[in-house]
């Protein structure tokens, strides 16, 4: 039954992707992209990746759709139909697809326990996590502790992307537009009854759920990345309902920019403190006298740093794009 469900979802995914490519109306393409992400999240869940499904649902279907819509509002939402030579692309793509499908016959089939990917470090992670770190969620253990370097790098990439968007969009374009301040007409959807009522009801619960995901990430699916995406999705909804001005009064831009830097700093600082205590960089065992308790403390602080940076970056990007006005 689960297998059939998976096949159905995967087929639906391909159909949605074809719909996205064919849509002339970019608004329709963006909406289909949101549906595509939601289907992808369902597939991740069927494939036992609860953490990834949570992230994809919050980021792909929520934040990414929002950003694409924001960009559409600043450009054009119609794609020009034109006669282009499409045959070379179609031939290249078809030949490559067939070659890749031919190559898949050497892949282990889905769920094969003998597949090479399950032989190397994965069993070690599963057997050592209860002894060394002693938290139930192995994904969080690997993310924050075993492969902390990776995660630190990813946080810096997100940091850089957030700073980059601010550099590109926030400094005006030479015609006197200081754009970090929203214009006075940004009253949001306050005059529409249904979004206002539903939005006000939902926002606290989304943010609360985000905080739960942040601090319960060691025990269930969750962690800083998911929590950051969820909290910023909730706050973006608040900005949409109440207007950007109101949202910026609740959390000013200077706070958001501070959050971007502070989260990344916190992550790195935990690593450096470990070094001062005589351990390696990002070794949390030395933080407290009990190594396992030290791991718990380190993971909690690091996840907090990740959550703060992700929230800050996503909200800053949203406000930067939303504050820009299209000039006609």
């Amino acid at each position: 039954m689960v297998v059939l469900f998976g096949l159905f979802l995967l087929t639906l995914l391909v159909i949605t992707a074809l719909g996205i490519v064919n849509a002339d109306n970019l608004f329709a393409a963006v909406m289909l992209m949101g549906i595509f992400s939601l289907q992808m999240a369902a597939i991740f869940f069927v494939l036992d990746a609860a953490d990834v499904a949570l992230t994809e649902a919050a980021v792909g279907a929520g934040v990414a759709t929002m950003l694409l819509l924001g960009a559409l509002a600043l450009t054009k939402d119609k794609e020009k139909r034109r006669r282009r030579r499409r045959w070379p692309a179609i031939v290249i793509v078809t030949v490559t697809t067939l070659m890749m499908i031919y190559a898949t016959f050497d892949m282990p089939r889905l769920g094969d326990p003998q597949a090479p990917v399950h032989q190397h470090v994965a069993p070690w992670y599963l057997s050592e996590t209860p002894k060394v770190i002693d938290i139930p969620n192995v994904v969080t253990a690997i993310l924050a502790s075993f492969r902390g370097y990776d995660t630190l790098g990813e946080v810096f990439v997100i940091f850089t992307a957030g700073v980059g968007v601010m550099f590109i969009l926030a400094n005006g374009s030479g015609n006197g537009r200081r754009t970090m301040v929203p214009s006075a007409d940004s009253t949001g959807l306050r005059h529409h009854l249904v979004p206002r009522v539903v939005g006000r009801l939902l926002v606290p619960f989304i943010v609360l759920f985000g905080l739960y995901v942040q601090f319960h990430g060691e025990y269930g699916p969750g962690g800083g990345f998911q929590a950051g995406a969820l909290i910023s999705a909730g706050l973006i909804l608040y900005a949409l309902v109440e207007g950007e001005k109101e949202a910026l009064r609740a959390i000013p831009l200077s706070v958001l920019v501070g959050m971007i830097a502070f989260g990344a700093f916190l992550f790195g600082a935990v690593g450096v403190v470990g070094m001062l205590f005589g351990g390696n960089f990002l070794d949390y065992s030395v933080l407290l006298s009990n190594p396992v308790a030290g791991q718990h403390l380190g993971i909690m602080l690091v996840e907090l740093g990740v959550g703060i940076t992700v929230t800050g970056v996503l909200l800053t990007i949203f406000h930067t794009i939303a504050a820009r006005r299209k000039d006609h």
Partner: protein
Amino acid sequence: MEFFGLYNYWVFAVLLMIGLYTVMSKANLIKKLIGMSIFQSAVFLLYITMDKVEGGTAPILKPGVDGQIYSNPLPQVLILTAIVVGVATLALGLAIVVRISESYGTIEEDEVREIDRE
């Protein structure tokens, strides 16, 4: 059902190439970014497909339960972070497109090139 053991990989191949086709054949820059997102999602699907173990469950350990099979947590960690990085880079791309649109008045690649040539 044995036959469908590779179906995930076929969908991966098709999605990857749908994304590539969009990037190659569409002139609209936002459409190109959407194509890149599809390409990226296909790679996510490949990784998550590899984490599945038959009869397994999500890798959240439960004390006192013996003999439970868990799926491979490592690909999940890699993709978890990649999704958030993906949306951050998408935002960077969109910011550049918005600036192009403001400077050139269009986001169609060939029209931008025409204006550059003049």
